């Protein structure tokens, strides 16, 4: 009796410690989840805050005269310069003038050219247009350049600030929605750079990727699930697919470089080759998802079809495949989302070049959105870092959209047998 009571004493004595240990263990779990989620939140918020300002651009309402003297020389920036001289007549000296001209973007002249091309009757007339300011002035307006810093440490001098302040007082300079960001290709000038070129490149690349990987993936899955005998050969294919799924993406880029570019002599930087490389990369994802979808179709469906005299191919084509299709499509969308975010293999096949033009075909030089982000992230200008974050917002927006479609499709078509 005394023995058992001392036993329970020992247990009782340890209980408080054991419960503390229990609580601590539980806390570790909550802390781990909190760390992961707060990192995600910090990352998304940090990028979001940086990027949102890029959706606006500083424009100046400039009164310009379509002077034949400049138009004949094709000197469109000259028109801008003349207008600036008129606005600030007191500015003399070459250095000061050059500073004055640099308030406006070097692309403002091209805007005028476009306006004139659409309406040549403007020749000799005076009109006012909202034209883009340079990136430094843009940063000043957005508060990214601090006016209180010593002049030498600031990218914008005191004189330039005086000019901008006069514009502000006149109400001719303001932040407007940055349409150019969504319609332009890449540029060396941050205020002229946009994501449209990269978006079109991404779209073309994904189209090739889809056209190759979707049929190939589904046919492979159908073969392995419905037709293949269980033997060494199919085992080999399966092991292969599982390993391909885990090969680092950059290795696919090396494959593309050695085989597609150097052996088959396909064009560099082209969405065609990019799509082919990404197709090989997404193939395992699609095959694995498609096989799961086929396995989810109950055998009774097949047996019923066989019972009605359908052949194996008819059974698969008419009954199994349509039933498995939503699951296959969901897996394919997720695979495409992965391909959209992939950049490493595309660096290998030269889709990293500086490309201003919007790609028009599958063999034009192009870049894709993630690579554009990589390129901009490397640029030293403050205005580019803002645009990088904005491009990330666009990319993540597309990824969210694709995943949402996949989730909705899964909810809508999911069938429990």
């Amino acid at each position, binding site marked *: 009796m005394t023995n058992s009571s001392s036993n329970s004493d020992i247990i009782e004595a340890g209980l408080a410690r054991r*419960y503390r240990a229990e609580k601590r263990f539980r806390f570790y779990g909550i802390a*781990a*989840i909190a760390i992961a989620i707060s990192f995600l939140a910090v990352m998304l918020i940090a990028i979001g805050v940086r990027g949102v300002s890029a959706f606006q651009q500083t424009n100046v309402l400039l009164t310009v005269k379509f002077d034949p003297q400049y138009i004949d020389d094709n000197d469109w920036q000259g028109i801008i310069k003349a207008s600036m001289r008129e606005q600030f007549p007191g500015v003399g000296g070459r250095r000061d003038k050059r500073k004055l001209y640099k308030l406006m973007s070097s692309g403002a002249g091209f805007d005028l050219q476009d306006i004139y091309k659409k309406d040549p009757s403007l020749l000799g007339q005076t009109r006012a247009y909202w034209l883009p300011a340079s990136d430094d002035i843009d940063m000043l307006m957005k508060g990214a350049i601090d006016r209180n810093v010593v002049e030498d440490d600031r990218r914008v001098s005191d004189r330039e600030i005086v000019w901008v302040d006069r514009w502000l007082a006149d109400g001719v300079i303001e932040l407007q929605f940055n349409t150019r960001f969504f319609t332009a290709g890449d540029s060396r000038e941050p205020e002229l750079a946009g994501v449209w070129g990269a978006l079109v490149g991404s779209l073309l690349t994904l189209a090739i990727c889809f056209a190759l990987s979707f049929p190939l993936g589904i046919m492979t899955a159908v073969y392995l699930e419905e037709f293949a005998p269980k033997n060494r050969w199919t085992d080999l294919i399966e092991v292969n697919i599982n390993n391909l799924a885990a090969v680092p993406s950059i290795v696919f880029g090396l494959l593309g470089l050695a085989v597609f570019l150097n052996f088959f002599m396909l064009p560099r930087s082209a969405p065609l080759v990019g799509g082919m490389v990404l197709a090989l990369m997404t193939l395992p994802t699609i095959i694995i998802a498609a096989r799961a979808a086929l396995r989810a179709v109950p055998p009774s469906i097949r047996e019923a079809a066989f019972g009605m005299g359908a052949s194996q191919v008819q059974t698969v084509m008419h009954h199994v495949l349509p039933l498995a299709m939503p699951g296959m499509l969901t897996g394919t969308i997720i695979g495409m989302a992965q391909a959209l975010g992939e950049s490493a293999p595309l660096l290998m096949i030269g889709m*990293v070049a500086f490309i201003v033009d919007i790609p028009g075909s599958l063999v034009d030089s192009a870049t894709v959105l993630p690579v554009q982000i990589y390129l901009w992230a490397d640029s030293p200008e403050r205005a580019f870092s803002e645009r990088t974050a904005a491009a990330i917002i666009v990319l993540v927006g597309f990824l969210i959209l694709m995943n949402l479609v996949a989730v909705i499709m899964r909810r809508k078509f999911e069938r429990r047998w």
Partner: protein
Amino acid sequence: MHITSARRMKNLVEAAIKLLLIASSMVAILSTVGIVASLLFEALRFFGEIPPTDFLFGLEWSPQTAIRADQVGSSGSFGAIPLFAGTMLISAIALIVATPVGLFAAIYLAEYAHVSVRDWVKPILEILAGIPTVVYGFFAALVVAPWLRGTGEAVGFDVSSESALAAGLVMGVMITPLISSLSDDVINAVPQNMRDGSFALGATKSETIRNVVLPAALPGIMGGLLLAASRAIGETMIVVMAAGLAANLTANPLQAVTTVTVQIVTLLTGDQEFDSAKTLAAFALGLMLFVTTLVLNVIALYIVRKYREQYD
């Protein structure tokens, strides 16, 4: 007569379709063959110029090739040890971050969390896996690295602006969901009656997890860790954007190191003269990368599969 000819036609079509299916499943094998062949072929050409021992055991990496024959420092050195060390250092930091976070998250989700919490938290963790690596790279280079540098200065450490620590930390977060979802699967696969037995002996929940569930799930968790390690070794964008280019042979996480993947990118995104040892070196590095990750993956898949059979 009618019926037989129709049947013959059908047989023909069916055979053709079957052939098409077999052909498409060959693509998976062909791409593996393509990878191995292209890596081996180019790497062998590289080893024709640079002896494999110099590559595998050399301590100095500076892949400049001469423009003129009499140039100073013209013979580039291709000792890959600093790259392997840098890759290991960054991957190790990533695993040190990701293993406890991923494992504890998986334990909490599998054993403690209410179903409704689980339904919310799991998809959020999966978002981390779906974010493109270039986004992580941007975050590492523009937010984490300057922050580390600032904190280091305040404490009195000299942190390089492209430290291994910044790249490793962010990469750790990237592979966390991989570890947590794989561990979650194996923890869930441990049969309930093992837990019940432990509870019946008076163990608390955490004691049950530590002494019964985790030992039973250990092989599967190890397999998951190996897969995560292979992901970390092959990861490119984070290190390209946040780790350095200089090949330092150091174990100090506050300094800049370079990795195999960073060097592949830098060697191949510049000039594209395909016969120089410089571009061929990228393929030799790619071969090393492929072999390493393949071995890790095969071991991991083997462990995971073998473990699963125990309880099914």
